[in-house]
């Protein structure tokens, strides 16, 4: 759960705050867990929501929303095909992504949410999530190929 929060807020101290808030909130709201999904998924969603709220509060960079992002879906070309990935480098490159890109990419690739669920979590359209994900991969490619890692 700490890793889930960390990937969204990208800061160890804030990830700790998220974890604490989420666990306390989960305990205090145990009665709202209806048992229609796995308990882990319920708890993870609380962590994700707390982390996203924290990023939103920062206001340094905005998460994708309808006003700021073109919702047109971009062609999902696999620009990273054949790229010699290394776990450490990919992990560091993800940490270097701007908030909006990192959040969508992490939720989709690492936390296992689909674009419909990401849209619901972030309050954006499913197509915006897809578009933002494609852009985040382009940005990730730039970082990986930039030789800064």
């Amino acid at each position, binding site marked *: 759960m700490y*890793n889930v929060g960390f990937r969204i807020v990208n800061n160890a101290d804030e990830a700790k705050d998220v974890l604490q808030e989420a*666990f306390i909130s989960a305990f205090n709201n145990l009665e709202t867990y209806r048992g229609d999904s796995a308990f882990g998924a319920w708890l993870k969603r609380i962590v994700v929501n707390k982390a996203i709220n924290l990023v939103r509060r920062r206001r340094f960079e905005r998460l994708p929303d309808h006003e700021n992002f073109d919702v047109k879906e971009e062609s999902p070309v*696999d620009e990273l095909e054949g*790229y010699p990935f290394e*776990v450490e480098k990919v992990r560091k490159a993800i940490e270097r992504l701007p908030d909006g890109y990192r959040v969508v990419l992490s939720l989709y690739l690492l936390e296992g949410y689909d674009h419909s669920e990401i849209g619901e979590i972030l309050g954006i359209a499913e197509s915006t999530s897809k578009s933002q994900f494609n852009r985040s991969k382009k940005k990730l490619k730039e970082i990986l190929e930039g030789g800064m890692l």
Partner: protein
Amino acid sequence: MNDSLKEFINKNREGFDTQTPPESAWHQVDASLPRATKQIFLNSISFWRAAAILLLGLSSYLFFSKANSNSDKRDVAALQGFNDLESYYSLQIKEKMTLVNRFQSQTGLTEDDITQNLKKLEAMYLVLKDEMKKRPTQDVRDALVLNLLVRIDLINQQLNKLDQPSQKEEEKSL
């Protein structure tokens, strides 16, 4: 369309969970939870195992304890609405257990760890219910709710487990 990044991450998923929370992360959580149940959160890896242990401990404590039987007004107020909650969760358990039993009879699977744990939790629940009648407090109520939630989670696990062979068969047939 293949996604090579997605494939790479899926193959190396564990390599992306490298961060560990500092020890101090638990202090505030620990301080914010009711004394009887805060141990649940100290070990996130074995959350439900810890919950089951806690329930066992709490059940034993309540069973043998000569604790004060006078519940205060706050406890009484907190207990209101419990019956609705219990009915809701109990219905879910009943419906899901019907599915589990149907699956098991169809597949010929016999009792395993999960079903044994479910029986133990059900036994603990009866002890807690008895305690609830004698000394209805917030702690007993929380333990009862937690017991129901743990059982629902175990049943969900069991259903997923039982459903796996049929999923594999479907994949094979595609």
